C-alpha cells in the first residue's frame, strides 16, 4: 500500500532559508565538527606561546607536551565516558594513585607483571563498586565517586604504613613508557595512548556499547524501555574508568619516577576541565573523545604558557578558570538552541 509523498511532509513546516542562513551554516559546521574550532584554539595558543617565549615550539617541546598531555587525556577519558552518561568520576585521582602505589610497593616482591595485574584488578574493583552503587543503588555519581575516593585514600594510607619497609620501586618498563621520548619528539607513552584513543573514539561511534553510553546519558528511561539493562552499562563504564585511571596512574608514576598515595589527586579537576573544554556535555548524551584529547592538549599548552610567563599563582588560577568558562560558554552558544 503506497501513500502519496505529500502525506509525510504535511506534518512539517516548510524550511526556507532565513536571512541569517550563512551565520547558521557557520554554526552548523562548528556544531557538527566541534573539533575544528578547538584545534584552531589550540593553534592560536601555540602561536601565543611561541610569541611569549620565542623558540620554545620545537620538536623537543612537542615531545614533552604530548608526554604530559597523555596521562591527563587518559584521565579525561574516564570523565568523558562518565559524562556521556550524565555522570562524573571524582575517584580517578585516588584510584590512579592506588595503581601507581601498589605497583611501586609490590613489584620488588611480586615482580612487575604480577604487581601490575594486582593493581589493575584493584582499580577495576573500585570501579565495580562505583558502578554498582551508581547503576544498581542509584547513588548520585558525584557522591558515589567522592565517597570512593575517600575510601581508597584511607585504605592506601593504612597500607602505606604497613609497606614502608618495602620501599617504592618504579618498574623500568613503566619508566620507559611513561617518560621516554623516541626520535626526539615521540613520547613512548603513545604506544599505550594511541590504541586507547582509537578504541575509545571509534568505539563510541561504532559499538553497541558506545551507543548505549550516549543513550543512557540522553534518556535512561528510553534506553531501559528499548531493552538496555542500564545498570550493566554503568558497572562496565565505571570499571572501565577504573582501569583507564590505573593506566594513567602507571604512566604518571613512570613519568615522575614516583609513586605516592596522592600522586594523581591534583589532576582530577583538570581532567574534568579537559572533557568540558573538549565539548562533552556534563549533562550527558553529547560529546566525544577526540574533543577531549584536544582539550587535554589545550590545557597542557595553557599551563606551559602560564609557567613560561611566570604568572603569579593567583593569576594562573584566575586565568585557568576564565578560560574554562569562556570556552564552555562559546560551546553552549554555538551548539545550544538558545
Amino acid at each position, binding site marked *: 500500500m503506497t501513500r502519496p509523498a505529500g502525506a509525510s511532509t504535511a506534518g512539517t513546516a516548510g524550511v526556507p532559508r532565513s536571512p541569517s542562513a550563512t551565520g547558521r551554516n557557520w554554526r552548523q559546521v562548528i556544531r557538527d565538527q566541534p573539533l575544528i574550532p578547538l584545534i584552531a584554539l589550540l593553534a592560536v595558543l601555540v602561536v601565543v606561546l611561541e610569541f611569549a617565549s620565542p623558540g*620554545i615550539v620545537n620538536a623537543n617541546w612537542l615531545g*614533552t607536551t604530548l608526554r604530559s598531555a597523555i596521562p591527563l587525556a587518559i584521565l579525561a577519558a574516564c570523565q568523558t565516558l562518565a559524562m556521556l552518561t550524565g555522570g562524573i568520576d571524582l575517584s580517578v585521582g585516588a584510584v590512579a594513585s592506588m595503581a601507581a602505589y601498589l605497583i611501586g610497593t609490590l613489584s620488588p616482591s611480586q615482580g612487575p607483571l604480577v604487581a601490575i595485574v594486582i593493581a589493575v584488578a584493584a582499580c577495576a574493583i573500585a570501579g565495580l563498586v562505583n558502578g554498582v552503587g551508581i547503576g544498581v543503588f542509584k547513588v548520585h555519581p558525584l557522591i558515589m565517586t567522592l565517597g570512593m575516593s575517600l575510601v581508597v*585514600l584511607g585504605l592506601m594510607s593504612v597500607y602505606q*604504613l604497613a609497606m614502608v619497609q618495602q620501599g617504592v620501586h618504579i618498574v623500568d618498563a613503566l619508566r620507559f613508557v611513561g617518560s621516554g621520548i623516541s626520535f626526539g619528539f615521540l613520547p613512548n607513552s603513545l604506544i599505550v595512548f594511541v590504541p586507547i584513543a582509537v578504541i575509545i573514539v571509534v568505539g563510541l561511534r561504532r559499538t553497541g556499547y558506545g551507543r548505549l553510553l550516549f543513550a543512557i546519558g540522553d534518556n535512561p528511561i528510553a534506553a531501559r524501555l528499548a531493552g538496555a539493562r542500564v545498570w550493566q552499562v554503568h558497572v562496565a563504564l565505571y570499571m572501565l574508568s577504573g582501569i583507564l585511571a590505573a593506566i594513567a596512574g602507571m604512566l604518571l608514576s613512570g613519568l615522575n619516577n614516583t609513586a*605516592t598515595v596522592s600522586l594523581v*589527586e591534583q589532576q582530577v579537576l583538570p581532567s574534568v576541565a579537559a572533557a568540558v573544554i573538549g565539548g562533552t556535555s556534563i549533562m550527558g548524551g553529547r560529546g566525544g573523545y577526540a574533543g577531549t584529547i584536544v582539550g587535554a592538549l589545550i590545557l597542557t599548552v595553557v599551563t606551559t604558557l602560564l609557567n*613560561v610567563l611566570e604568572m603569579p599563582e593567583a593569576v594562573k588560577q584566575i586565568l585557568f578558570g576564565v578560560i574554562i568558562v569562556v570556552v564552555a560558554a562559546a560551546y553552549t552558544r554555538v551548539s545550544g538552541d538558545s
Partner: protein
Amino acid sequence: GSSGSAGGAGGAGGATKYTIGFSNAGGVGNGWREAMLCSAKAQAVKSGNVSKVTIIHRDTDAPGQLSDIRTLIAQNVNAIIINPSGPDALNPAIAEATAAGITVIAVDASVTAPGAYNLSNDQEQYAYLGASWLFKAMGGKGAVVYMRGIAGHPADTDRDKGFQRALAENKGITIANTAVTKWDPVTATRQINDIMSAGTKFDGIWTSGVDSNIVDALKGANHAYVPIVGADNAGFVTQLLNEPGLKGAAVTNPASIGGAGVTLALQVLSGKKPASNTVHVTPELWSNEDDAGKAKLKAAADATLPPTWPLGLTIQDWTTYSKPELIACKGPGDA
C-alpha cells in the same frame, strides 16, 4: 614491633606512665607527616615512660584542629603534641589544655599561646642555609630556578623569607623562573620541563620538597646538571650519592621532630623544663661536595625507603629509637 608491646607490658608496674595525644592537621597520605607520627610512636615506646599515644590525624584546618585538641583534653591525656595548622588559631584550646594541667608542645611550626612549648624545624633557616650554599656553588652569579611549595602555606612563607634573605646577600644571582609546585611531583615535573622547553637558561635550582623528580626531569631531557638544593628525601639523597656529575645538597627537615616532641613532653612532665619555651631544631646541610656532607649522606641513605620519605629519621639528643623501630611504626601497646 615486639619491643613496643614488651616495653608497654614490662613497665606497667614501674615508673610513671604518661599518655600523650598527638594532633595532626594535614596530609593524609603525606609521607613526611606519616614519618613524623611514626617517630612519635617509636620514641614513646623507647622512652618506656609512655603508656599510650593517641593520634588525631586528618586533613583539616584550624576549626577542625581546635575540636581535635578539645577531644584530646576530654581524654585526659598528660601531654598534647600539635603540628599546628596556624600560629594563633589554636590558642583558645591550648589555653584550656594548659589550664587543665596538660603539657602542650607544638612541633614543626610554632604557636603563639603563652603556655605552650614550641619545638620546630626552623623553616626560614632551612631555606637560607640551602640557598646560601647553592649561590656559592653557582659562583655567586647566574640565574636560579626557584621552586616553591603551596602558595599561602605558612612553611612556604617562612622558607620564602629565608630564600629572599640569601638572595639579597648574593647580588649576582637572579631568578630565572619562579614555580609554585604545590609540593606535587606531577606539577613540579611539568614545570621544570616547561622551563627547559622554553629554553630558559639557569645555573642552579632551589626546590622546596619535590627534588628527586627534578633531577629525573633534567636527566630525561638530557639537560646538563646544575647545582641543586633539595631536602633530605630518600630518593634525592640516593641521587646525590650515585648520579655522576650531579652537584647538590640536601637540607634536613627531619620528620623525627615528632619523636623529639615526645622527648620534650616527657622532660617537661618530669619537671625538667627547658630554658625557653621555643626550641629550634636547626637544619643541617649535607652536600655531596665535601667529605663531611658525603659521609652524612651515606649514613642516611636508604634506597629501600620510598623516594619521598624523609631520611632525617633521628635527631641527635632528641630521639633514641633505631631505624627499624621507627619503620615498624608501632606505639606503646600496639599489636
